[in-house]
């Protein structure tokens, strides 16, 4: 039987053409500004390169070798992990608590929810500045309040204290992140079928039992997404970078260096693009592992 149709082309002809037209701006941009640089960036890791002359000197895997013996890199890695752990272990449960709270019926709930948007919209560097004003040892009212309550010594400094500075930065970051976690949890809670909760009530479950047996299992996917989001924010988001550079600039005594900040410092102020790229590559690998985990959860959810 004669058909005018190519059996190996199982789509409408015009559909592929339209797709090509629609995707072309996206694709050209991505090819030039994302794919090419990513490939180039790998090449950089095998070279010594400065921004001033842009003449790569091939050095093989020297950059990678240097990485293993770089004490500052090791310190930054540990500090990044500590920051990430705190950010996730404290921020996500706090975000969940906020979501449960803002899911209650109360007067002014709309206003309260709108307030949660403010940290989200605030530029991270401004967030850093505001928290600095609140927490600094000189004129910050919070340390002062603790001081007159007799809980802290005079002129107590969190950002200047080598052991506490990183914690201080994490708190600043949580100010911005927790409302975001809370919003994601809230949208998860909205999809919680009321029947399940109601049937549990009819069958005699207490509030705690409903939370433990119904709400929490139901929120599991959102919980996972939030944990990984927290990881990305702490590990590779620009938010962590902005807060570090704004408040401590890595100090005191390198105690707030994190991988991201280190890579940027190597690449630009210290003008070692090759070595900076190498660190960025390692961060990328860690982030991609995170991303893959996120994707798996994502597809499971669908």
């Amino acid at each position, binding site marked *: 039987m004669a058909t005018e149709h190519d059996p190996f082309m199982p789509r409408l002809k015009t559909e592929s053409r339209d797709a090509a037209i629609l995707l072309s701006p996206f694709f050209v941009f991505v090819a030039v500004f994302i794919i090419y640089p990513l490939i180039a960036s790998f090449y950089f890791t095998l070279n010594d390169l400065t921004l001033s002359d842009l003449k790569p000197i091939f050095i093989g895997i020297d950059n990678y070798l240097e990485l293993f013996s770089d004490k500052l890199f090791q310190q930054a890695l540990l500090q990044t992990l500590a920051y990430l752990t705190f950010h996730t272990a404290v921020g996500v449960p706090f975000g969940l608590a906020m979501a449960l709270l803002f899911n209650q019926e109360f007067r002014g709930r709309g206003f309260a929810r709108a307030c949660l948007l403010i940290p989200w919209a605030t530029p991270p560097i401004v967030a850093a500045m505001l928290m600095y004003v609140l927490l600094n040892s000189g004129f910050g009212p919070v340390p002062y309040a603790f001081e007159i309550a007799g809980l802290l010594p005079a002129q107590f400094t969190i950002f200047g204290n080598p052991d506490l500075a990183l914690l201080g930065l994490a708190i600043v970051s949580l100010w911005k992140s927790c409302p975001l976690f809370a919003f994601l949890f809230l949208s998860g809670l909205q999809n919680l079928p009321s029947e399940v909760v*109601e*049937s549990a009530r009819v*069958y005699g479950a207490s509030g705690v039992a409903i939370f433990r047996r119904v709400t929490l299992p139901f929120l599991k996917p959102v919980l996972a997404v939030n944990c990984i989001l927290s990881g990305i924010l702490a590990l590779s988001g620009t938010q962590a970078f902005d807060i570090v550079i704004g408040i401590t600039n890595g100090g005191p005594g390198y105690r707030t260096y994190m991988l991201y900040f280190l890579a940027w410092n190597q690449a630009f102020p210290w003008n070692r693009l090759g070595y900076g790229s190498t660190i960025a590559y390692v961060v990328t690998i860690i982030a991609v592992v995170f991303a893959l985990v996120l994707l798996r959860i994502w597809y499971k959810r669908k």
Partner: protein
Amino acid sequence: MTEDGVVARVKIEKLTKRFGEVVAVDAISAEIADGELTCMLGPSGCGKTTTLRIIAGLEQQDEGDIYIGDTLVNDLPPRDRDIGMVFQFYAMYPDKNVFEQLAFPLRMRKFPKEEINKRVKDVAEMLEIGNLLKEPVSRLTVGDRQKIEIGRAIVRQPQVYLFDEPLTNLDAKLRAQMRAELKRIQNELKTTTIYVTHDQLEAMILASRIAIMDKGKIVQYDTPDRLYERPSDLFVAGFIGTPPMNFVDCTLTRDKDEYRLDAGDFKYDVTDMAELIRKSSAGSELILGIRPEDLRITERATERDTVEMKVDILEPLGSRMIVNLTVGSHYLKANTRAMPLKPNEKVKIVLDRNKIHIFDKKTSTAIV
């Protein structure tokens, strides 16, 4: 009656619930007899589900009282009302297998382990899902989910079951199957049940008594037979039966001693009921109602109460058929055994004197 001999009737008195300006439930009272299945039937938004949720304790009434057995339960939370509830959207707990779904109400009441095992097995056996106990719910069919939902309601053997449109989400075939199944279970358990539905067929088949609701009020509360044969007003008459009752606007006219209903395109002699009609109707504007199965196609031209109509569209249903008829500007549906008819054919239709209904157009209440 429950095991210990407590009478498990449910009584509601002057129950009222408002949502803002809207009166969802408007001072309704009813008594649901022990061991019977009572349906609350009505279109969406009539207040039936709200009433059920108030009885369950999921919603607080603004006024009125609820008794379950002889206990006033107004201030009791749902868990203390001794009820089992089946929801329209199957309320499955995430991450639990079928056994755990069924065991949940027992675990919440701290039943001993052996007791839980035994009861869950018994219930699963009765619902024919015994082989699924280890399956996660995500892999079950809708029908099985439905059974779990029912199983969870009965596993604790509460005094009263509340069903909220349990069959609505099933496809037609499964719905018919589950309907018969539910009727069998109810026959076996004989537990007081309140069953909310918008499907009149379901209500007519399952219920001992039906409360028809509209706009927050109970319009008629009666047995299925009475509702079908003696609907108290136009709403009930139109809501029950499918295809619905035919309605024809007409006026009462008098010609000497003969009284007729004049529908414009035909007349219908009502001399024998004229007294009754005149006594109980406000004006002469009436509505003649007759169910599709009470329109009989006849061969004999001389029969009484015969109207000539034209066949319009035929809808064969297998052993029966629906004949869409026209007479002048009126459309009527007749439900008869399958017979050879052709579109546009003229037929003689008998409007059975004993089966007609007459309603007052103004008040919409039934006269005959």
